[in-house]
C-alpha cells in the first residue's frame, strides 16, 4: 500500500530529474535536448523510450567478474538509495477535513505530536536516513570490485576516499541541526516552524556541498569521470543493470534533496495534507534541479583537490555549523 505509490513516485521523479538535467544542460549549451519523442511536452517521453531500450538490451556479465555481486550490486544500490524515503516525512496529516484524515491515528508521531506522511514512524529518522544512505558507497565499491575492471578499481578507490570526506560532512551538518533543535526527528524539526537555513545557514551550505559530493554530481564527479574512468564503477554494465546503476545516484540525490527540503527549508509548512506534500516535493525538486544544473557550469575537480577542499575548508565549516547549532540550540 505504501511501497507502490512510493516506487511509482520515485520512478517519475527519477525520469524528471534526468529529463531536467538534459534540458537544462541543453538550454545553456545552445541546443534543444530531448525533443522528438514528444514535442508537446519537451521530449519527456524520450527518457521512457531510453529506459525501455536499456531494459530490453542484453545484460552482459563479464566472464572474469564475481557474477553474484556483479548482478546484485546495482540492484542493492538502487534499493538502498530508495529505502531512506521511508523515514522522510513529506507532510502532516490533518486530523480532519482531508481524504487522508482516516489514517490520522495510524501514522501518529507521538514524539512530534502530529501525524505524518511517513511510512515508518520513528523518533530517530535523521539517524536512520544517514545510516541507510551511507551503505550505498560501500555497495558501489563492492560493485566496482566485482566487475574486475581496472577503471572500476580506480573508481572504487576514489569513491572510498571520497566517502570518508563527504559522509563526515553530512553527518556533522545533520547532527548540528539535531543539536540545535534538540531532536533527531525530522517532523519535530519542521514543526518548530524555523527553517534550518535561517537557523544555521552554514550547516545548510555544507550539507548542500556534501550532497553534491555524495551523489557524484558535478563538480565532484570524480568517481564516475567518464573521460578518465569511463563511468568508473559501472564501466562493465549494460542493459537493465546499467539503468539501475544510473538510477541509484539520482534517487540518492532526490533523497538528500528531500532531507534538505524538510530540515533546512521548512518542509510542508505553511501548508498541510496533500498540498503540503506537494510543496515539500517542489522544494526538493528545486534543490534537485539546482544540483543537476551544476553539470553545465562546472567541470570536475581532481580527487586530491576535493579532499583538500573537504577537509581544509568544509570540515572546519561543518564544525562551525556545529558550534552555531549549540548556540542556536539555547534559543530554540
Amino acid at each position, binding site marked *: 500500500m505504501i511501497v507502490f505509490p512510493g516506487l511509482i513516485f520515485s520512478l517519475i521523479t527519477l525520469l524528471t530529474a534526468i529529463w531536467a538535467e538534459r534540458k537544462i*544542460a541543453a538550454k*545553456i*549549451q*545552445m*541546443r534543444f535536448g530531448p525533443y522528438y519523442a514528444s514535442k508537446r511536452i519537451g521530449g519527456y517521453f524520450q527518457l521512457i523510450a531510453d529506459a525501455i531500450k536499456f531494459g530490453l538490451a542484453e545484460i552482459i556479465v563479464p566472464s*572474469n*567478474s*564475481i557474477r553474484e555481486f556483479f548482478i546484485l550490486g546495482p540492484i542493492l544500490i538502487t534499493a538502498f538509495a530508495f529505502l531512506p524515503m521511508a523515514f522522510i516525512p513529506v507532510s502532516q496529516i490533518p486530523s480532519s477535513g482531508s481524504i487522508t484524515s482516516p489514517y490520522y491515528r495510524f501514522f501518529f508521531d507521538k514524539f512530534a505530536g502530529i501525524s505524518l506522511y511517513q511510512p515508518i514512524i520513528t523518533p530517530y529518522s535523521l539517524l536512520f536516513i544517514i545510516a541507510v544512505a551511507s551503505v550505498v558507497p560501500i555497495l558501489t565499491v563492492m560493485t566496482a*570490485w*566485482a566487475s*574486475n575492471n*581496472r*577503471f572500476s*578499481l*580506480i573508481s572504487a578507490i576514489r569513491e572510498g576516499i571520497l566517502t570518508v570526506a563527504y559522509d563526515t560532512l553530512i553527518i556533522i551538518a545533520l547532527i548540528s541541526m539535531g543539536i540545535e533543535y534538540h531532536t533527531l526527528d525530522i517532523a519535530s524539526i519542521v514543526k518548530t516552524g524555523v527553517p534550518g537555513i535561517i537557523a544555521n545557514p552554514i550547516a545548510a551550505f555544507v550539507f548542500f556541498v556534501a550532497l553534491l559530493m555524495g551523489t557524484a554530481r*558535478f*563538480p565532484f*564527479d*570524480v568517481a564516475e*569521470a*567518464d*573521460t*578518465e574512468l*569511463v563511468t568508473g564503477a559501472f564501466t562493465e554494465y549494460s542493459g537493465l543493470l546499467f539503468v539501475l546503476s544510473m538510477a541509484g545516484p539520482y534517487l540518492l540525490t532526490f533523497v538528500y534533496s528531500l532531507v534538505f527540503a524538510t530540515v533546512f527549508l521548512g518542509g510542508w509548512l505553511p501548508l498541510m495534507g496533500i498540498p503540503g506534500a506537494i510543496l515539500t516535493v517542489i522544494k526538493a525538486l528545486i534543490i534537485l534541479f539546482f544540483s543537476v544544473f551544476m*553539470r*553545465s*557550469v*562546472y*567541470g*570536475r*575537480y*581532481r*580527487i*586530491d*583537490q576535493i579532499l583538500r577542499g573537504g577537509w581544509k575548508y568544509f570540515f572546519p565549516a561543518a564544525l562551525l555549523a556545529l558550534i552555531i547549532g549549540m548556540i542556536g540550540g539555547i534559543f530554540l
Partner: protein
Amino acid sequence: MTEEVEKILKGGLEVEIVPVEGELNVGPQHPGSGHMRIFVRLNGDIIEDVDLDVGYVHRSVEKLSENRNYIHLIPLIERPAILDSIHMNMAYIMAVEKILNVDVPPRALYLRSFAAEVNRIASHLYGMGIFGVFMGHSTAFMWGFGDREVWVEILQALTGARVTNSYILPGGVRRDITPVIMEMTEKAIKYTRRKLNDWKGIFVNNPNIKARTQNVGVMTKENAIRWGAVGPNLRASGVAFDVRKAEPYAAYDKLDFEIPVYKEGDAYARTLVRIEEIEQSMKMLEQIMREIPQGNILSDRFFKQIPPIRLKKWWEGQHRIVMPGYYASFRPPKGEAFARVEAGRGELAFYVISDGTAKPYRLRMITPSYRLIKVFRELAKGSRYADLVTIYGSLDYFPPEADR
C-alpha cells in the same frame, strides 16, 4: 607469513589483485584518448610513464603524394587536419609556388590571411571545446563547437565548403571576398567578442577550471625548446616565436598584431594564449577587411590562360576564378622548396622535391601535432592520472594531424 597472505587471498576472492603499481590501457576506445592508445604505467595515482601508441589514423599522405599530381594533392593534404585545412593547404601551395616561381597578387595574399585567421579561430574554439569536455565541462564542449559554427559558416560562404576548403591554388585563391561575407564577418566578430566574455565567466575564470589547469603539465622554457614544442604551447612557456612574425608569409608583414606570450607554461597559460589569439585574429580580420587592396586574385601567368568567355562569366559575374587547363597536370621545373606557416596548433612545415615530372619526387610534412607527441609524453610523466586528459586537451593534440 607471505604464504598465509597468499592463501587468504587465493581462498575467498577469485579476483586478481591489482597491485598499487599497474598498467592501464587508455584507448583506443576510451572517451579520453582520441585516436590512439595511451599506455599508462601508474604508481598509485601518479603516472610513472606513458607510452603513446599513435598511428591509428595514419593515411600515408607522404607516400601517396609520390603517386599523385600536384593538383590532386590539395584535397589529400588537407585531410590530416580538416579543421585547420586552410593552413595545411597554404603551406603546401607555398612550397609548390616556390618551385614554380610564381608571384601571388597582393589581394590573394590578403585573402589567404583572411581565410587562415578565420580558420585559426575555428580551430582554437574546437580545441577549447575538446579541452573542456576532457575535464568534464560539457558547456565548453558545446559552446566550442557551436561558436565555431559561426566561423565555419563564413568559410563556407567564402570557399564553398565547411571544412575541406581546398581554397588556395598555386598562384592565388579560388574565390574573392564579397561585401556579404565582410558583413557576416563583422557580425561574427561582434558575436564572438560578446561570447568570449561569457567564456571567461563560465570557463576561463571558473575556479574549478583554474584548479584543474594551473600548475598542471608545466613546461619550462628550456624544456619547451628542447622537446620541440610549437605554436600556442611554446608561447605559453615564454618563448616568443611565431612564424607569422619570424618569417612573414601571406599578408602578415602588413598586418599589426601581437603574439600573446605567457610565462608559466602550464595548462592554464596555454588556454589563455588560445583565448588571446582568438582576439588577435579578430583584430587582424578587421584590419584585412579595411585594407584589402583591389586587384586580381590569381597570378597573371595563370589568369591569362583562362578562356575569355569563362572569365567574363565567373570573374566578373561571380567573383571567382576558374582553373585554366594548365592545372590538370602541370610539371614544375626541377627543384626543391621548403615552406612553413603558423597553423592553428603551431608551426607546420612542408618540404617538396620536384624532379620535373607531374608528381612530386618527395613530399615531407611536419605537422605541429607530430611534434607534440614527445611533449605530451614528457609532460604526462609524474603527473596525476586525472591530469592526463588535462594535459592532452591543453596541448590541443590532434591525432590525425600527427599520424598524417
